[in-house]
């Protein structure tokens, strides 16, 4: 899945920034727009499995508004981060969350 190139209402062309942000997903560099959330950047790069439940079912993008907890990822070791409402930042390390989050102390 890529990004929209045109839209009947939204002005997609002029809102597409020329600058980029690079972060890491499972160690692989991902190129994102500065206005992306982690989830939108992953989807735009063809990644739709964000993690697994404790019963090993794949999880991903669902409600897109921070409610459903389907898109939880680990960001720099911090679990339970809702990728759909968390903006991308340069250099962050995003990993798939498996089951419940691991505590960090």
């Amino acid at each position, binding site marked *: 899945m890529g990004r929209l190139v045109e839209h009947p209402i939204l002005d997609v062309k002029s809102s597409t920034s020329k600058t980029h942000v690079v972060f890491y997903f499972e160690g692989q560099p991902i190129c994102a727009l500065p206005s992306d959330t982690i989830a939108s950047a992953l989807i735009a790069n063809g990644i739709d499995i964000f993690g697994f439940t404790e019963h090993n079912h794949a999880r991903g993008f669902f409600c897109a508004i921070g409610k459903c*907890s389907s898109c939880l990822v680990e960001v720099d070791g*911090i*679990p*339970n981060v809702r990728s759909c409402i968390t903006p991308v930042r340069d250099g962050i390390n995003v990993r798939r969350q498996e*089951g*419940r*989050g*691991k*505590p*960090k*102390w």
Partner: protein
Amino acid sequence: MSEVKGAYNVCIIGGGITGTALAYSLCNLGETSVAVFEKSYLSSGSTGRCGGGIRQQWSTKNNVRLAMRSVELFEHFKEDVGTDIEYYQGGYLMLSYDEEEAKQFEKNVEIQREEGLDVEILTPKQVSERYPYINTEDLVLATFCQKDGHANPHKAVIGYAQAARRMGARIYTHTEVLGIDVQNGKVVGVDTNQGYFKCDAVVNASGPWSKQVSQLVGVDLPTESYRHQIFVTEPLENFFPMMAISFAGNFYMRQAQHGQFIMGQGDKDEKPGINYNVTFKFEKELTVKMVKLFPFLRNLRIMRHWSGMYNMSPDAQPIIGQSNIVNNYFYAVGYSGHGFMVAPAVTEALAELIVLGKTTHTDISYLNVDRFANAEVEKEKNVV
């Protein structure tokens, strides 16, 4: 008087842990003509709102004995009652941040050990070695009892209710008791919004409403209800087995089987009265305090926040027994925030008192309301 809808030997007012466990205990002793009246749904009062801790580390001999009997019964809950209530003996870690309180803890441990309870005294260094995720700054001393633990209060109530029903008890939910019929100084029936029920005995197990229900028979009980708040976080992997509690630090916290952290604190400024609202003040105070003591909480979000009532007695110990003013009026109230954990032992004893006229497993005579007639009352010190 409304239409007569039935007749039971024992009518219990309140569908919380006490009401349902008592119905179960009565049935166990062969008394199956039992009805429970609950004005809302089962465990809708204090039981369903509580933290679910079960501990034996008390400051008086009698309370330790009562709690130890309760734990014996909780240990066999699954076989005896037939429900898995997420009972887990992960221990209770009592943290003291106060020199004087620490001395009291050492005295308590002596009493607890005399009763045969296995309790450890831990230095701050030992605590941080065992539990590296706890910040032990300012900690003076901790005590730990592995046999303490926690369970799911909703499941316990449902378990007791189902077992009691199987043995013949009736449970009326959404049935409010409006009056208790007393004739010639003896209880003869209860009037509810679903009709009138004849009975030989009434048990007040109404938790937060104990005082008002007791006024229906004209007996004054020295109880007052105070709001206590709790919140629960999103889940993490299970790694925190025990209930951590502090009286001087004013908090308790445990991790539920599904991974969420449930925690609460008391508020000295709380006014008596039934109030189920929640406050931002509570959230702010508790989050600031707990993140400092348990740094792994820093990145967790609060999922839900609710409140429940402590039905307080003057000495912070339950009021259990039989009225000597009105015949066949029993009460099991004023648990002061620890009703869930002692309910199995209390209701076993109370059922014995009702059916046999005497207790055989645990002595509960020290919990009779008459103790407040004496000027000197030994207050239980171990309460949040």
